């Protein structure tokens, strides 16, 4: 595995820690490229003919496919291995973080010279975060195990990189590179004085933006204190000016009409049916007239064939991504309309790795992230 580019907050790995992470990374590449594709012949040659024989028709949607495929032995074995590989990601990063935690906490306590960090100990962590640990990261993004904790952020940095099998790039910022490249192409003349990134976790995306646009004032919010402490220290280590604060994107303390651009990077599917509308409403409130909202998330169900739709939803049922099940069928332009955006200013678009400045070896050019755009 190609390691992440080192920065001052990145947990160092001794021999076996590096080796264990490399194994998980390579194992996941093997699962994705050699084992996962077997689900297609398994379905078309075995599961589908049996279904047609019994019912006299093909499955009408991905839900029907799920009911039969989850009993298929090939699918079950792949699925069980995929789940284990996800657990193994975290197991492979915890040791190094735990070992260095006191030092990492000390480093994160240094005040920033570029940006800032504002925490709110009274902020209530929403239920969609506390109900289950998202992506199976033990302790999730919001739990402090010790004063000044940064463990969740330190684990997230290596863990998401291994999850993506290197696809997030050695700067762990591929999503930021995609939205940045997309924005420059879509809105070449838009001047940005003030930008907000919602649900930033360790700020991988917003920090990339801040590095590209040092004249712009960048703000980033998340509900998780340990990821914000880590993200702030990481941004400082990378020389980027970002103002991190612990806030819920559903209701922030920023003033009306105070941002030129509001972004989020695969935040929405980690929220809830109520929260997502609140987030769109809040985005509208915070935008200056002419300001742009750009929420990037994962593909929706519409247009996907039943088998592909079912396989795409593996993460929902096996990787604690519960709200994604609902988001898959939601009407994003309708959320925009309800928030106040006019029809002619709502643009459902998509962007992929082709917008990245640094191509990574595993970047999948064929995969596109939908981006919901609303202009106030």
């Amino acid at each position, binding site marked *: 595995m190609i390691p992440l580019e080192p920065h001052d907050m990145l947990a160092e790995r001794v021999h076996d820690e590096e080796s264990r992470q490399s194994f998980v990374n390579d194992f996941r590449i093997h699962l994705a490229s050699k084992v996962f594709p077997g689900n297609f012949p398994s379905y078309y040659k075995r599961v589908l003919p049996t279904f047609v024989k019994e019912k006299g028709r093909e499955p009408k949607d991905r839900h029907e496919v799920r009911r039969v495929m989850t009993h298929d032995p090939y699918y079950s074995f792949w*699925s069980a291995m995929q789940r284990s590989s996800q657990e193994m990601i975290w197991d492979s990063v915890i040791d190094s973080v735990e070992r260095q935690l006191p030092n990492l906490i000390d480093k994160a306590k240094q005040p920033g010279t570029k940006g800032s960090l504002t925490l709110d100990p009274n902020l209530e962590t929403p239920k969609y975060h506390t109900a289950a640990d998202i992506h199976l990261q033990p302790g999730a993004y919001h739990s402090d195990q010790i004063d000044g904790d940064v463990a969740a952020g330190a684990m997230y940095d290596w863990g998401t990189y291994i999850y993506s099998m290197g696809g997030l790039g050695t700067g762990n910022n591929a999503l930021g590179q995609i939205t940045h490249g997309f924005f420059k192409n879509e809105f070449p003349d838009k001047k940005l004085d003030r930008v907000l990134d919602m649900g930033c976790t360790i700020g991988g995306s917003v920090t990339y933006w801040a590095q590209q646009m040092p004249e712009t004032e960048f703000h980033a919010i998340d509900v998780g204190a340990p990821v914000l402490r880590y993200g702030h220290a990481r941004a400082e280590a990378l020389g980027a000016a970002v103002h991190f604060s612990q806030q819920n994107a559903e209701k922030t303390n920023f003033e009306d009409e105070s941002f030129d651009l509001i972004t989020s990077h695969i935040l929405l599917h980690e929220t809830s049916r109520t929260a997502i509308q609140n987030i769109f409403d809040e985005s509208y409130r915070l935008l200056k007239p002419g300001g742009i909202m750009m929420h990037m998330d994962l593909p929706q169900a519409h247009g996907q064939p039943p088998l592909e739709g079912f396989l795409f939803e593996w993460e929902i049922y096996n990787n604690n991504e519960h709200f994604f099940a609902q988001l898959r069928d939601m009407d994003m332009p309708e959320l925009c309309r309800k928030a106040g955006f006019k029809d002619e200013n709502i643009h459902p678009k998509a962007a992929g790795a082709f917008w990245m400045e640094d191509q990574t070896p595993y970047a999948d050019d064929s995969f596109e992230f939908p981006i919901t755009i609303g202009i106030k």
Partner: protein
Amino acid sequence: MPNDDQKKIKLPRTAKGKKPQYFSDPTVDKLLSMVLTLMGELSVTRDRLDTVERLIEKHGLFKVDDIEHYEIPDDVNQVRTERRSAYIARVLKCVQDELDALQDQGSGKNVEMDD
């Protein structure tokens, strides 16, 4: 700089949330986790051995090629054969246990035991 021992903390190792059951017998789920973990640990051990070999060569103790062409003396061969046999028996003990139980249970007329 704080001493690591003074602030030692154990991070949680298990994610909150219901874990799906993949096989009709939950024992198979556990076995698969064990096998995959063993796969990983064996890979880690192989990497570590590789590092040892490379460092030995770098420091001029011997060449890695010497390993490839190592001629096994008879006594070493004997030791390895015994160790390998014991290792296989240890890993496959659960199979042997089942066979032993069957032997005890039945008339034993179809199976002859060495001991």
